[in-house]
């Protein structure tokens, strides 16, 4: 698949934001009427550690151009230690994705507290610009994994 040079092309970026820090920071950005690109969509999770690598893979598979995982600053997690797990899982997954040809800029983790509205705005703008420069993601897209087939096979094997 060739990368289209289309100036009107807008990336599709998913941001998993923890409820206590980054989601609050994003709300604060709104309260302060800060402006950022429309191409980022926030998915609210209780803690960044809820983000399963599966969610990220699914996003790339379904055509997302970038995925952000955002949580409280390390040491400030609402659940004490959640974001430490996030950090380790993220490191592993980012390297795995890079090995599979996905630019590390497409999958980033950022720590944004509930008071850092400006950091949220700047992060979104920065990541959005980076991914726009990279062009659309075509890795994994269309790679379809049908769960039902596996389950049927497993059932078949029992008989």
């Amino acid at each position, binding site marked *: 698949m060739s990368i289209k040079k289309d100036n009107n092309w807008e990336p599709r970026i998913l941001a998993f934001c923890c409820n206590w820090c980054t989601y609050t920071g994003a709300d604060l950005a709104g309260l302060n009427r800060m402006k950022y690109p429309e191409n980022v*969509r926030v998915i609210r999770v209780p803690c960044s550690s809820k983000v399963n690598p599966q*969610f990220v893979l699914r996003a790339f598979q379904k055509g997302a151009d970038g995925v952000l995982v955002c949580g409280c600053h390390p040491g400030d997690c609402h659940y004490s230690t959640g974001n430490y797990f996030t950090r380790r899982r993220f490191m592993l997954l980012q390297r795995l994705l890079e090995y599979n040809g996905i630019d590390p800029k497409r999958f980033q983790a950022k720590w944004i507290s509930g008071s850092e509205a400006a950091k949220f705005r700047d992060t979104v703008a920065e990541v959005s610009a980076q991914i726009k420069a990279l062009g659309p993601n075509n890795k994994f897209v269309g790679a379809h994994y049908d769960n039902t087939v596996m389950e049927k096979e497993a059932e078949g094997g029992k008989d």
Partner: protein
Amino acid sequence: MARIGVFICHCGTNIASVVDVEKVAQAAKSMPGVAFATDYKYMCSEPGQAMIKQAIEEHHLDRIVIGSCSPRMHELTFRKMLKATNVNPYMLEIANLREQCAWVHTDRAKATEKAINLVRMSVAKVGNNKPLHTSMIPITKKALVIGGGIAGIQAALDIADCGFDVTIVEKEPSIGGHMVMLDKTFPTMDCSACISTPKMVDAGAHPNITLKTYCEVESVSGYIGNFEVTIKEKTKFVNHDLCTGCGLCQTKCPTKVISEFNQGMSKRPAIYIPFAQAVPSKPVIDENACLKLTKDKCGICEKICPLGAINYKDEVRYTKEQFGAIVVATGYELADWKKMYPEYGGGRYEDVITGLQFERLVNASGPTEGHIVRPSDGKEPKDVVIVKCVGSRDPKKGKSYCSRACCMYSAKHAHQILDKIPGSRVYIFYMDVRTPGKGYEEFYDNTRRDGAQYIRGRVSKIYKEDDKLIVKGEDSLLGRPVTVEADMVILATAMEPAPKIEEVVQKLGISMDKDKWIQEAHPKLRPVETQSAGIFLCGTCQGPKDIPDTVAQASAAAAKVAAILCHDEMETSPMISSVDQTKCSGCGFCVPTCPYKAISLVEVPGRDGNRKVTKKVAQVNEGLCQGCGCCNAACRTGCIDLKGFTNDQILKEVDALCL
């Protein structure tokens, strides 16, 4: 098949001015599962809610999506609304069209497209929502207060007056904390002991308060309403049930060691009551100093005790107790300036003392019975230098924060010296004078009128020349160096958290800030709560503060505790993890990820072919789980899932956003 209702709010013009709300509602109608969609000016208003209720009835909706402000704003409002219908309150999702769409974008077409996308995401999620039900857990109607300073005493008294049992755990042999060491309190100059000791006596005599002095918290488990706390009682070597506090043992003890209470300026015996007004007024034996315990000699106290209360074979005792709520009031210590400021003598000069030492010096019950004299030779000082911000507001050597009380107590010290020693001169080196409190500025003004000389600048060196301490500093207003020949120097040293604060924080599962002060849940709106439900804080463990603020915070924490203990049982959030035990392989990977120790492996009956066996599976304690979902991503079989944020729900959201 789900029947979803979608309600798009205009929020006056907040959303509608940027997002084409009608178009969003129209688009929602064609989303899978949507049975009804509409828009309205104010969804959260009375008529808005009535409209939603009517639509639920008319269109037989079983779940709803509201496109409005942030769920952090009105999720509870709409859940309450659903309670009055036959739809479960958790069959609700909110698409954040205000804070995260209308307010942050200007391009109407793009914002509308994003809004449709966000609504599609919520519709996809709500389609997988399941009805959730809160459960009730019983509450132990008893509170634990850690720390018996003025904060802990006040909190305990207020809770006890509400009719609940309170236990105060204090690591020292007596309650009272730092306040009882002080001489007079600013700005009213009332005697500190005169106002704090009656409170100590009240706490000791209150039928609802149990004092556990010379004790420490060993471990804490459980959760709001049901904490299980192990309290360690250190070895007192004196049976307090028998002891009447006659004090005979103290007078006969041959060993003398430095008195902590008098800040090292006098001696105390090895068997001691820390100060005259102590509560309980019963002695303990310092096992590091006692001749009997260290060298197996002496034993005088045992011989002379008329009640036989001395027991050299005393052992550390542990007791387990249940509490419904915990108040942390562990207080402060003064930072050790000696290491931070070697240029001030680093402790070599006896006449360079801290503010707290001066409080003992000027206190009528102190080592000099209130006479201000130099510790080195007992002479009355004529020229006294007070150095402020020793360790505070000095990120390079000490702490970056302001210790808040020092400006005022330094002014008080100056006032006391000028008042008690005729012809004395007081020089105060300061960076800024901060007097934000009722009557504080007036007090500072009076001190200056009394004759205290305020010099704006830092002190660079203190050294001894003959009988005098030479204080070299800078007057930054005049821009020239200053040298003062002083008889005594008082350092207003920084406050820092109590030494074992890390242990306490770790045992309780709460958090600290960068300076190790305990972190409040919200600096403005939840100032006495911690991040852990049911654990509150008050006083200087949260940050430096003076007595009025400490007492106010203590009463606030007490009110919060009473608000929990006044219920017989409490509702728990149903949005917690649960395990599908039929799928669980018992690998235990989820167990260490839980910060609340809520997951454990249990044995359940299972089958291996036709054979009946027991297998290990994970189990979540519903009272402990706080619903972070950290364990979910660790699960290899995907059998542990967070209700309300299931893997399926989030995958559906991802799919919907990528359409």
